[in-house]
């Protein structure tokens, strides 16, 4: 998953956040959020996690959990209008 690390990202929740904390943060802090399952492709990478995985959208910014084996889960935000639009078309509203 080196690709996402090479993108310009904002760290919303730092290392140490649990996967469930990331989901709760997205649900509480974003008026627009969507759900996907593990294996959903985002920024050309497969996203993993406890289903359902919550993705927040704020304008063109997508907020999503990103797990690394040695570090745990981070909540990252990346600006990409095209990818945000693709999420709106392919993700689901319900858990």
């Amino acid at each position, binding site marked *: 998953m080196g690709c996402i690390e090479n993108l310009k990202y904002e760290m919303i929740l730092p290392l140490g956040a*649990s996967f469930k904390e990331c989901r709760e943060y997205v649900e509480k802090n974003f008026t627009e959020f969507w759900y996907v399952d593990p*294996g959903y492709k985002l920024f050309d990478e*497969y996203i*993993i996690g406890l289903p359902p995985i919550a993705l927040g959208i704020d304008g063109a910014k997508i907020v999503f959990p990103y797990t690394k084996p040695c570090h745990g889960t981070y909540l990252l935000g990346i600006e990409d209008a095209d990818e945000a639009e693709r999420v709106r078309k392919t993700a689901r509203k319900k858990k």
Partner: protein
Amino acid sequence: MTPPPENPVPASALLILGCPEIPVQQALALHIAFQLRKQGTATHAAGNPAVLNLLKVSDPEKRYLPEMSVLEKCIEEIIEKKRDCDLCIVFAHSDAGITYAATMRHLLPAARLVVIIFGKDPEPLAALADFPCEKIVEKAVHNPMQLKRKMNGVFGWAA
């Protein structure tokens, strides 16, 4: 001891390894690989480069783990239906480990999933694994013996 009838010998197994900071993991991974090889199960191990290098050093002739790949590649192959298994064993000593186990549950719905939850404080982690799986939970950092005994019992391997 023969495996319980509800769990016949799997043709293929996948070992998902976490960060190698807890020493028992690598020893137990090789123990599992040895037992699986003995019973005729083809085993693939996936982890980050550090844990794979530790295993390569400990198994230089690839007797126990002939097939290994980095985690991201392995997950990609499963999603793209290029890899499957009958048995998936996930080592988890952190929230990330449970996340990988949950991912495997979703991606491999037909596989027997066994999550080995260990480390300094495994009980809170075990509570996070609220998806269908078998859990082997034991406080273990440097001494693998009790966890090995539990695993042998679950898998029906002789001590």
